[in-house]
């Protein structure tokens, strides 16, 4: 190095400089290293945060077995919090209270959908005992799952002030257990329903006609013809199947939180689970309404399984014809006089 040589020349001239020059020579490698400024290239939190894309997180390496501990900062948690505390109450509130309001208005305006011809006194089997068992297995699980799920979303605001923290936490812990365990019979019921009812729920031309005529929702005496299930019932079937599968898949990951492994995946599945749940509950409220107070004679289908012949003819004319052709149902009798109300 020329600089070192010149220093050496200096050292010959002046011994007092020699010590200083030697020091410089020995110090120069260190000085050269410092000029690299390793700290200038060091990781900066601010740069990392600014470079983060939405939903990303700052991750590194950890020496412990828990891989998820390598996530240092995940700002997406704030978005999830915002969803839980600000968005979900609105989604759920509008879906559920909105549906209740629509149903209440419908009941006030339209009233109960009556059996126009009146009850015939004759009945025919609509749902066999195994079908009813499957329905009520799924339905009872659904109700408990819905209530315990709503408790997670709204209990803190609505029930905690009434119960107090200890009783509410105890109740919520049991609700969580029920939610976790009843998921399995619910999924079983869902699978059976799919198998036993899929053949009657394939959409067809008749359904389009039914929908175009408003399904007879608007008048008692005009019901578009339908087979075993009309378009509305097929809609409910597919809502239950598709909604149920989405709830099952998302719920499965929440039930086994170590499966997806990553907090981002878990956040995604909780959002899916919550939004679908709110819409699912709203749709089931309509189903419960029309199967009970909304329509005269409808509950028997899932109650005793035997429906009145006139109800069946008005709502499922083609199905009744099919059954009569099979010989399982009594032949037509002249309709009774309509009782005055």
């Amino acid at each position, binding site marked *: 190095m020329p600089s070192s040589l010149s220093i050496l020349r200096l050292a010959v001239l002046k011994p007092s400089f020699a010590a200083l020059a030697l020091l410089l020579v020995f110090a120069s490698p260190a000085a050269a290293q410092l000029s690299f400024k390793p*700290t200038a290239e060091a990781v900066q*939190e601010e740069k990392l945060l600014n470079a983060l894309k939405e939903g990303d997180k700052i991750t590194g390496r950890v020496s412990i077995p828990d891989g998820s501990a390598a996530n240092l900062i995940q700002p997406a948690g704030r978005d999830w919090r915002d969803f839980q505390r600000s968005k979900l109450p609105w989604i759920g509130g509008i879906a559920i209270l909105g549906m209740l309001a629509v149903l209440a208005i419908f009941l006030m305006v339209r009233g109960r959908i009556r059996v126009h011809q009146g009850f015939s006194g004759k009945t025919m089997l609509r749902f066999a005992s195994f079908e009813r068992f499957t329905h009520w297995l799924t339905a009872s699980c659904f109700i408990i799952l819905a209530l315990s799920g709503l408790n997670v979303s709204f209990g*803190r605001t609505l029930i905690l002030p009434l119960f107090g923290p200890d009783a509410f936490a105890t109740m919520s812990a049991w609700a969580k257990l029920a939610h976790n365990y009843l998921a399995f019979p619910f999924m079983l019921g869902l699978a059976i329903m799919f198998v036993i009812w899929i053949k009657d729920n394939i959409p067809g031309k008749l359904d389009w006609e039914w929908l175009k005529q408003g399904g007879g929702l608007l008048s008692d005496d005009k019901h578009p013809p339908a087979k075993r299930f009309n378009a509305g019932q097929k809609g409910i079937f597919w809502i239950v199947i598709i909604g149920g599968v989405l709830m099952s898949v998302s719920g499965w990951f929440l039930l086994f*939180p170590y499966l997806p492994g990553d907090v981002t995946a878990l956040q995604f599945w909780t959002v899916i689970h919550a939004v679908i749940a709110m819409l699912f509950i709203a749709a089931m409220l309509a189903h419960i309404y029309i199967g009970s107070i909304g329509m005269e004679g409808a509950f028997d289908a899932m109650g005793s399984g035997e429906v009145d012949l006139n109800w069946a003819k008005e709502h499922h004319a083609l199905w009744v014809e099919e059954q009569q052709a099979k010989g399982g149902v009594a032949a037509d009798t002249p309709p009774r006089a309509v009782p005055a109300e």
Partner: protein
Amino acid sequence: MARVKFLCDADRCIECNACVTACKNEHEVPWGINRRRVVTINDGKPGERSVSMACMHCTDAPCAAVCPVSCFYTTADGVVLHSKDLCIGCGYCFYACPFGAPQYPKVGNFGSRGKMDKCTYCAGGPEADSTPAEYAKYGANRLAEGKLPICAEMCSTKSLLAGDGAIIAEIYKERVMKRGYGSGMWGWKTAYSDSPTG
């Protein structure tokens, strides 16, 4: 009352993991649960930095905001604590936490979540201070004894600082001024929106 915080000076952290070990030992934290961990960013590359991270005891804590049973509370010192008697182990705080602080023991038939465990800033829980019941659920209560968290107290390079947020921020800024560099107050912007008093 002081608003206590953690601050990890990543330019001093040597990734010795003594804070992790000391924490586990002090509170007899169960196997598989880490209240504190050291994360190395850009490991093996020039300018790699290690950050010791635990619960940051956030201002307006996200965990407390999303808890369905409202089991969190903030002490007068700004420490975010929770009641394991109320916790139902739903995992919501883990989804919301920016720092991955909440930990859950695997319990039950499916390995599902038990009651949440996290850094207490060595301040125990809702039980009476320094009782066996408090120790069993939350670990030691050093704050009640006038001591700071063990992780920061025994940090060999004084990288991990604990104490009054305003004071430790001042110490860090002095260090940065003196040495001319600093990789940042890790997590502060996220936890306290950069506010020294928040």
